[in-house]
């Protein structure tokens, strides 16, 4: 492989990557390509194998089986210090006996960069994460957000080809987390470095990533853009894990009709054969409540309001259908008709607002 293949080459390329701990398959036969310059998220519940996958890219775990390439070079069992990647660790793993400057300069020092040059570059990295004036402090004298920035600078100062981030914002409070999301994203755009990050927070993945890989039990369930994953979830797990949704059981009647559990037919496109058992995913914000007597556009199911939760910007209704309960979220717009508990309602939705999923 030569360098002039440039950006056509995947930053990270995995084929049949498998990691077994004893009898447990932490990662089970994964094929995955992460493109050059991409902001990529590995998303899943805890224990799904996302961190193990990241650690294999870093070289902190070696795969049991399979091929792992970074920009075309096989790195499967290469030691971590010989890979063109750096990691921002969960809880940062800053060296407590070193100052901020020494922490950030550590990687350069290991590369035998001269002392003066190390200091210059480390100071630049510290400025990049807006920590100038803090370089003499020890990690325990910094707030969580500042430690996070040091960890980022410490990794980026080495100009890695791929930056790995393990739950980078997990330890921060909500407001700081949202700030850092924006900052991380713009930093990634500026530097053009491939970022791969692990998170269990689907909102974080949605807001930052160009593409998301949803993992469960060591298996990739879907790899796609945030929109694609939200609009067209590959299966029941993805639909349920990403955002909040109502899953209505039913079976396929033909390519454009699904019959729900209570016998009512709704129009929805599907490629599945007639008779297939499916679930229809209806997002709470895609459904609208109407009075029982009205005839709304599109499809509907009938039910009764069980409870209402006022959120300020929205009302969330729990609506009891004949055979199950669903959530409906109405934005608090002027003129919104508010239903009281007990009211009979018609839950309406556009045919293209729902998607069909299977196990």
């Amino acid at each position, binding site marked *: 492989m030569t360098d002039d293949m440039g950006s056509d080459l995947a930053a990270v390329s995995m084929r049949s990557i498998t990691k077994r701990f004893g009898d447990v398959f932490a990662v089970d036969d994964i094929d995955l390509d992460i493109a050059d310059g991409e902001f990529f998220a590995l998303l899943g519940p805890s224990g799904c194998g996302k961190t193990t996958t990241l650690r294999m890219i870093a*070289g902190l775990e070696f795969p049991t089986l399979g091929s792992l390439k970074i920009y075309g070079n096989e790195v499967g069992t290469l030691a*971590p210090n010989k890979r063109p990647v750096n*990691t921002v660790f969960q809880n940062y793993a800053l060296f407590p*006996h070193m100052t901020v400057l020494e922490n950030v300069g550590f990687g350069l020092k290991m590369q035998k960069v001269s002392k003066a040059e190390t200091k210059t570059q480390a100071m630049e990295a510290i400025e990049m994460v807006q920590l100038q004036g803090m370089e003499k402090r020890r990690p325990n004298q910094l707030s969580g957000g500042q430690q996070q920035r040091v960890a980022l600078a410490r990794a980026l100062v080495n100009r890695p080809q791929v930056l790995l981030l393990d739950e980078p914002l997990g330890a921060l409070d909500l407001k700081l987390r949202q700030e850092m999301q924006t900052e991380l994203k713009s930093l990634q755009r500026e530097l053009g470095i491939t970022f791969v990050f692990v998170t269990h927070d689907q909102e974080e993945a949605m807001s930052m990533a160009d593409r998301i890989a949803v993992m469960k039990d060591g298996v990739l369930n879907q790899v796609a853009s945030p929109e694609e994953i939200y609009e067209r979830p590959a299966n029941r797990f993805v639909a349920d894990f990403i955002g909040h949704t109502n899953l209505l059981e039913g079976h396929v009647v033909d390519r454009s009709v699904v019959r729900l559990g209570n016998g009512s037919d709704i129009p929805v496109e599907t490629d599945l054969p007639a008779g297939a058992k499916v679930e229809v995913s209806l997002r709470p914000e895609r459904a609208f409540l109407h009075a029982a007597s009205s005839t709304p556009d599109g499809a509907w199911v009938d039910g009764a309001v069980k409870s209402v939760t006022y959120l300020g910007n929205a009302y969330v209704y729990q609506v009891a259908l004949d055979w199950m309960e669903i959530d409906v979220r109405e934005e608090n717009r002027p003129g919104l008709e508010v239903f009281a508990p007990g009211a009979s309602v018609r839950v309406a939705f556009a045919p293209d607002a729902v998607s069909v999923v299977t196990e």
Partner: protein
Amino acid sequence: MAESGPTVLDRDDNAQDVRAKHAVDDQFEVRAAKAESRRGLLLALPAWLYLMVLFVAPLLIVTVYSFATRTRSGTDLSGWNLDSYRKLGEPIVRDILFRSLTLAVITTVICLVIAYPFSYYLATRPERIRNVMLVFVMIPFWTNFLVRNFAWRVILGNDGPLTTVTEAVGLGEVELLFTPVAVVLGLVYGFLPFMILPLYAAIERMDGRLLEASRDLGATGFESFRQVLLPLTMPGVIAGSILVFVPSLGAYVTPEILGGAKTTLLGSYIVIQFLTARNWPFGAALSFVLMAIMLVATLIYFRKGGKTL
């Protein structure tokens, strides 16, 4: 107090009221703090008494003796002077001091070199294996120290297993018994657990991800050890070294059993002064100097270690 409403004076009165109320609270706090410190003293009292009666008092007696003149019985106190301390400058005493220091330092270094990798290994095992191995480390303590030293005498002795082995492989007879090597061997054997335990505790406490981070940042295994593991486990190194160095320097039993007449060490020399030479003041002066050396060495070590922490 007419209809003029609250005046400045009124507000002052109120303030005084408030202050008076607070004064009560303040005193309560003071009393509580005093009670707390009394309770603390009570908890520490047994240890305090023990140390005062059995450590500080004897120490003072030793110090007083070291300034006395040697008498026929060796135990009478009279004629205060510094003769015993002047005697410390004599070549034979200097040799013994130097030899003791050297052997103690060698013992400490060997213990450190053996114990560090082992402690790291121990600290990185699964918990169940760790606990079993810790028990193994402590098993020697279950046998009397004297017996264990005599065991070495048998092992190293003329017809012992060591000679049998060396003769079998054609190295001939190896005479280790009654040499400084035998003493170091015995000291290392005896004090190794005192090095392992604090090192193990220090390494086990360290966040293993820091080593991953250093590898991730391009450090080799050795650089990770030097830059991250060693500095962060320095407290364990210091504690272990002191725990080995101090008893090695004053060791009596091991040098008596395994060392020869030519390798008299400080511990034996002090005993000779008290029991054979009947020179209590000189024995006291030697003890005092031994303690001073230990104290100074410990302080220097702490200082030096403190910088790298």
